[in-house]
């Protein structure tokens, strides 16, 4: 460690950006409901996202019941099956994962981790949540309208998305698109906050390269989302106009129910380009916050500094940039110039390099660490394994010649569930078990937590591992009932039944998790301010849960990076970021 001369340390420069004027709530309503405090907004985001996520979980049960035991359940017909897969996918990707990582974790952790009192635009931040809630309600309303929700598949490809014959053609698709437009408006409001807070509200001493990787992940993901979501916005608006006003942005000339449709000349491929220009960055919008959270969990619970911090930051930025030039690998079977296919396959495989750097660095962080197998650590380890798994099948699908036969089979479903379903949700759970003590002041129950982990982890593999095999057999996705085919043996149907039972069990394990959240809030063990012995700033707040304004009278001053674990010669096995170097008297940033 370099010794910085005392006279340099003592001369703390004046705060460059004045403190943002803090909004003070005056009533119960403005404190807990229409709150402008990022911590309350984070909890609101999380609860809303998890509630709609439970709906999507139940939908996945319905799908699995149908796939495992076709013909047994009369209440699931072909139309409903399509509606279930559509809503399950859309909710999980956008309304659960995106909202939870950025709106939930982002809102809670960014101000605390960079040493700010709140987000820089608290009013806009509050508005962001309410617009998000409206988007969720519009989405949920599609279950109640005549014709039910849309069954176009989560990609909403035209022309079938708005043609008669597709379920939800009357109202479902219109409300779906309206809900997406609302979501994007709400997200943009929140996203501006996350970015500007990281840029402008860091406390003194918190250089970019001293920020915890969680902040780096959420920050980069937000920048990507701000640039990528407009593509979904444009696509949604244009599809809505095609549906409502009869324009032909995407709709080709076609015959509908024996009649020549009013549409003509449009390009469905145009929609695919717009959709995937959003859709591919979206994968990393979900993955980068997970990468950040996992880095922090591993370092804290292995009591070791993160290996290759600089590389980790560079890799996050590189992945963010690269993810904008790979979108067409979702469109190999739509037809494209062979050179384009080659280009997009190459960029896709290049992304594996920074991603692999991250995986190696996690493993090297664990290497000879003092690994504590706490529940957050278990989830973090499960994340690494699962992400590697899903990443490897991604290498298969990234190559044009391998993708073409595997396209639209269960192999694709297994791949994306591993890489952006199971893996991010492991990071979500790990993050919740890790930060719950800070949010509530109480620990989550450890026994219930371990039960939840093992059932979820093993169960998820029981569902998705065999699915790769079904895909290789050629079993197509999105089929309500595959019936008798020559290429699918009878044993595959037994496998489907097994996977369905596993899916039901995994789903029930989530109820244990929800029970744990509520029970521990009331009866959990008192956590204290820093139960894990972590270094980053959110664990150093004067109160737990952090009070209004986070830091009491003085903002913290940061003296070091976020990963000083097991420093030789230090009194404890962690040195908090705001602990002054020996010989320096702690001073407040504002006196």
């Amino acid at each position, binding site marked *: 460690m*370099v010794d*910085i001369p005392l006279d*340099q*340390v003592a*001369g*703390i*420069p*004046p705060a*460059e*950006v004045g403190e943002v004027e803090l909004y003070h709530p005056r009533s119960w309503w403005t404190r807990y409901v229409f709150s402008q405090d990022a911590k309350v907004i984070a909890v609101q985001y999380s609860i809303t996202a998890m509630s709609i996520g439970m709906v999507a979980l139940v939908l996945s049960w319905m799908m699995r019941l149908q796939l495992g035991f076709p013909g047994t359940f009369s209440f699931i017909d072909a139309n409903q099956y399509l509606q279930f897969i559509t809503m399950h996918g859309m909710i999980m990707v956008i309304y659960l994962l995106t909202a939870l990582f950025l709106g939930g974790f982002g809102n809670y952790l960014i101000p605390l981790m960079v040493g700010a009192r709140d987000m*820089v*635009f608290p009013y806009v931040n509050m508005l962001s949540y309410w617009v998000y809630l409206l988007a969720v309600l519009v989405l949920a309303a599609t279950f109640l309208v005549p014709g039910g929700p849309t069954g176009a598949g989560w990609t909403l490809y035209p022309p079938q998305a708005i043609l008669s014959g597709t379920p939800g053609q009357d109202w479902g698709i219109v409300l779906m698109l309206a809900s997406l437009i609302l979501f994007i408006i709400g997200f*943009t409001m929140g996203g*501006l906050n996350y*970015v*500007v807070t990281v*840029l*402008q509200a860091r406390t*003194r*001493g*918190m*250089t*970019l*390269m*001293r920020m915890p990787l969680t902040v780096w992940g959420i920050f980069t993901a937000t*920048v990507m989302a701000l*640039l990528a979501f*407009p*593509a979904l*916005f*444009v696509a949604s*608006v244009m599809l809505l*106009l095609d549906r409502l*006003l009869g*324009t*032909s*942005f995407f709709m080709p000339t076609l015959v509908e129910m024996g009649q020549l449709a*009013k549409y003509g*000349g*449009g*390009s469905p491929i*145009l929609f695919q*380009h*717009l959709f995937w*220009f959003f859709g591919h960055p979206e994968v990393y919008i979900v993955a980068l916050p997970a990468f950040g959270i996992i880095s922090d969990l591993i370092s804290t619970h292995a009591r070791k*500094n993160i290996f290759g*911090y*600089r590389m980790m*930051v*560079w890799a996050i930025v590189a992945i963010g*940039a690269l993810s*904008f030039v790979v979108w067409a690998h979702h469109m190999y079977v739509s037809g494209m110039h062979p050179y384009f296919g080659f280009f997009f396959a190459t960029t896709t495989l290049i992304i594996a390099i920074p991603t692999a750097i991250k995986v190696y660095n996690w493993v090297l962080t664990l290497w000879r660490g003092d690994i504590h197998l706490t529940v957050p650590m278990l989830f973090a380890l499960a994340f690494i394994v699962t992400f590697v798994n899903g990443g490897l099948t991604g290498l298969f699908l990234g190559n044009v010649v391998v993708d073409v036969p595997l396209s639209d089979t269960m192999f694709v479903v297994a791949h994306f569930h591993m890489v952006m379903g199971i893996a991010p949700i492991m990071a979500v759970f790990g993050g919740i078990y890790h930060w719950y003590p800070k949010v509530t002041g109480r620990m989550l129950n450890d026994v219930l937590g371990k039960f939840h982990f093992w059932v979820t982890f093993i169960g998820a593999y029981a569902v998705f591992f065999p699915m790769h095999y079904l895909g290789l057999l050629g079993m197509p996705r999105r089929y309500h009932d595959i019936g008798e085919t020559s290429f699918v043996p009878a044993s595959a149907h037994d496998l489907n039944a097994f996977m369905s039972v596993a899916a039901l069990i995994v789903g029930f394990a989530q109820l244990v998790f929800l029970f744990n959240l509520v029970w521990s809030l009331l009866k959990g063990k008192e956590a204290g301010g820093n139960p894990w012995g972590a270094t980053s700033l959110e664990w150093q707040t004067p109160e737990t849960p952090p009070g209004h304004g986070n830091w009491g009278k003085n903002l913290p001053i*940061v*003296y*070091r*990076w976020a*990963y*000083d674990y097991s420093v030789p010669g230090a009194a404890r096995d962690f040195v908090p970021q705001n602990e002054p*170097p020996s010989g*320096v008297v702690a001073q407040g940033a504002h006196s």
Partner: protein
Amino acid sequence: MSAIVLFIAAVAAIAGWWLSQQRLAAKTWLEEGVAVDFRGERGSAVPPAKIGLGVFLAVVGSLFALLISAYSMRNTMVDWRELPLPRLLWLNTGVLIISSAALQWSLMAARRNDDEDMLVGLLVGGASAVTFLAGQLVVWQQLNVAGYVVASNPANSFFYLITALHGLHLIGGLVALGRTSAKVWRRAPMMQVRLSVELCAIYWHFLLLVWLVLLGLLTGWTENFVNICRQLLT
């Protein structure tokens, strides 16, 4: 998709330049102390609201770049029939330029603490922006009467969509401009007002720039320009 890829490349270049100033190669694990905060070295700070506006403009820019991408993919199809642009569009463009200039003038007045001129500039800017919007509605009306309705050809659909989205962004700006004018009226502290006026002016210039680019697209000039460049290169 080349428009949006170029736009993203430009944003990436700006982000890369900014990141290059941030000591990304620092070995922070070897450094201890507070003296390594590098934000303080570049003199005065940019207020958060201005950075926020900058980020928002990147989002809006991305939206319009995507529209341009979609436009240039769709207009190569066989059913595309150019629509005649009403002459009024040129007048509207002039009015929008006046609006932007008035806000710039207001900003200059704010910088020399001239309350009256500042308010006049804001009101002229607001009034001409409203005139522009009214003019755009008249253009729609003219096209409708002439039979160029929204769904009859993709060229029409794009024209209505692009002008509508641009207009909606201007309406959002008018809300901010109204609040700023009210602040000036109430004689709020000059520092606060100056920032608000500056943000409005930046937003207006940006929307003017976007409009000029869109106009070049709708008239086909951009396409001709790109074709000429392409011929020069080959």
